[in-house]
């Protein structure tokens, strides 16, 4: 034996340390799980950081729960039995009755309209543990899956797994459909490749991004595929899933992944604003390609640009209306870069317009380059963070308030008392902003309060 070792090539310390530290290769799905668990909290990151973190924990565990849900469905599918905690302060009279499922911080519940009664079903404690509720409310139950996984009829949801396989063999992606009423899972399709999430349900069935060659590197869904639950053998490639434009040194991510909406026979995404080059010394005006709203026709995979953000703005898709039109939020993105780097501990002055940008415009994209204005951005109190279209109109939320766009008019429906959706206890070791990083005061009318997330139609 000793002779064998003497024949081995001499190893350097780096190699020895690496070998000693051992199999530190991450799970191929780790990136998707981590990134997918981040909360969508437009404009609130700096103000409610730890609350967002808590929500992130919630979303993380709910998504993970989707993968292991088959083992927990009996408990997770139990009917919601919440507690009436109070009422919204109604500011408009509604001529219909319905119940709106919402999430506020770590609480999920239902708002009874038109009276505004709030029933909180459960409040998740920040931290680790098995989730007890999810992000979809359907049939009187909360399901621990993202809404995009739910079938249009609300009777089932899809989920996807991707195995790492064995060395030298390709990864395998498998799409399942879970029947909510029966509690059964059905394997729809399995094939070579890597896929970490469901894009959503559309006219052809379940759409998902797939990386057929499964190299484990680069972005994770180079193609868009679909599988029809009624004819799983007809699974096929819809089209390419091209990468976002990326700056030098940054990796690419596919256009149709997180945040993609499927509505109106199409998948919708935003091609992000990306500018190249270093920050000009001392600041200056920069040029960049505008952000665009892209539409993928789900019949043939063809791509087309339906909206181009005006100069100095960015665009996001907040949701879709019942007809499948994207709801766009147009935010101001200054294209003048100012020097902000601190030097030797000197105070950094943040331009107020960066910390508190003007209220966004809200548009309904009705056809290519055709929009209907929902909000002009002139109301300082309206900074929408969530939108959901249903038969009553488009529900929008702003910090501390609930709004409804209906019959061509935007109306504040109610104020949301913060006490109904209390902030969770901050975790220990909460990072605090550095002392030399002062924040300017908010402008007059800047809304504060809980930003509800509308989780489904008012039914």
């Amino acid at each position, binding site marked *: 034996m000793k002779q064998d*070792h003497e024949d*081995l090539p001499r190893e*350097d*310390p780096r190699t*020895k*340390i*690496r*070998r*000693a*530290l*051992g199999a*530190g290769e*991450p799970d191929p799905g*780790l*990136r998707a799980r*981590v*990134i997918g*668990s*981040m*909360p*969508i909290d*437009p*404009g609130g*990151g*700096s103000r409610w*950081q730890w609350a*967002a*973190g808590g929500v*992130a924990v919630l979303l*993380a565990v709910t998504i993970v729960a989707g993968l292991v849900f088959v083992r927990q469905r009996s408990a997770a599918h139990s009917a919601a039995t919440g507690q009436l905690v109070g009422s919204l302060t109604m500011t408009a009279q509604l001529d219909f009755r319905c119940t709106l499922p919402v999430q506020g911080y770590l609480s999920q519940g239902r708002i009874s309209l038109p009276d505004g009664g709030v029933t909180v079903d459960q409040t998740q404690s920040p931290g*680790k543990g098995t989730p007890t509720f999810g992000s979809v409310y359907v049939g009187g139950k909360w399901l621990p899956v993202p809404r995009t996984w739910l079938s249009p009829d609300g009777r089932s949801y899809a989920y996807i797994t991707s195995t790492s396989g064995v060395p030298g063999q390709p990864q395998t992606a498998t799409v399942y459909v879970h029947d909510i009423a029966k509690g059964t899972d059905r394997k729809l399709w399995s094939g070579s490749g890597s896929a970490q999430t469901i894009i959503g349900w559309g006219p052809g069935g379940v759409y998902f991004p797939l990386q057929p060659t499964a190299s484990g590197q680069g972005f994770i869904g180079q193609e868009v595929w679909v599988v029809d639950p009624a004819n799983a053998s007809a699974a096929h490639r819809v089209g390419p899933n091209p990468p*976002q434009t*990326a*700056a*030098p040194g*940054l*990796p*690419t*991510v596919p256009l149709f*992944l*997180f*945040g993609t909406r499927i509505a109106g026979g199409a998948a919708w995404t935003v091609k*992000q604003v990306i*500018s*190249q080059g*270093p*920050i000009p010394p001392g600041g200056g005006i920069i040029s960049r390609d505008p952000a665009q709203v892209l539409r993928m026709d789900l019949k043939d995979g063809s791509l087309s640009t339906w909206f181009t953000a005006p100069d100095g703005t*960015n665009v*996001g898709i907040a949701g879709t209306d019942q007809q499948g039109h994207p709801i766009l939020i147009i*935010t101001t*993105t200054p294209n003048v*870069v100012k020097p902000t*780097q*601190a030097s030797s501990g000197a105070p*950094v002055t943040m331009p107020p317009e960066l910390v508190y940008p003007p209220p966004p415009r809200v548009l309904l994209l009705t056809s290519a380059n055709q929009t209907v204005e929902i909000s002009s951005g002139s109301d300082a109190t309206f900074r929408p*963070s969530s939108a959901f279209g249903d038969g009553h109109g488009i529900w929008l939320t702003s910090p501390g308030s609930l709004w409804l766009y209906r019959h061509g008019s935007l109306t504040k429906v109610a104020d949301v008392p913060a006490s109904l959706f209390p902030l969770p206890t901050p975790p220990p070791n909460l*990072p605090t*902003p*550095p002392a030399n*990083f002062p924040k300017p005061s908010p402008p007059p009318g800047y809304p504060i309060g809980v930003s509800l997330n509308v989780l489904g139609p008012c039914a």
Partner: protein
Amino acid sequence: MASIAAAELVAQAKAGDRNAFDALVGPLIDPAFRLAFGMLHDREAAEDAVQEAAFRAWRSLGNLRPGTEMRPWFFAIVANQCRSTLRGRWRRVLKLDGVGTPSQGVEDPVVRGADLRRAIRQLKRDQRLALVLHFYLDLSLEEVAAITRAPVGTVKSRIHRAVARLRPQLEAEEVFG
């Protein structure tokens, strides 16, 4: 060199754009896992640390100064999270796993690797972090200094002392070669 593109991705991520966050932090997830694994020696704990670090990064975006390099910033969060983990309940488990008598005179490379691993675990935390960042993640001394918020000279010193403590398992003279 931070770019306008990165600055804009930060702004987009702050605005809730998950793709932007993925573009910023996504490529760092795998090396962050290796960093956490190198510090914690436990896959589950390492994944938890990366997950928690990503949350912290997400909610700290609002305080991220323009021009900040993402990799050292995020790795510093991961390193802090590992530190918290080691302070917590995992510490007992890891320490129990880490104690033991090095195998004396054993020629089997696998066993010698175990001895080295055990020795790495017993390094001071700052030394272990510098070692993992420099040798396991192939980061430059300058970048290790940025992550650990220590001068480059201090980083060199920590690595040198770490290697010195691992001398029974390593040929220290090759380290900076």
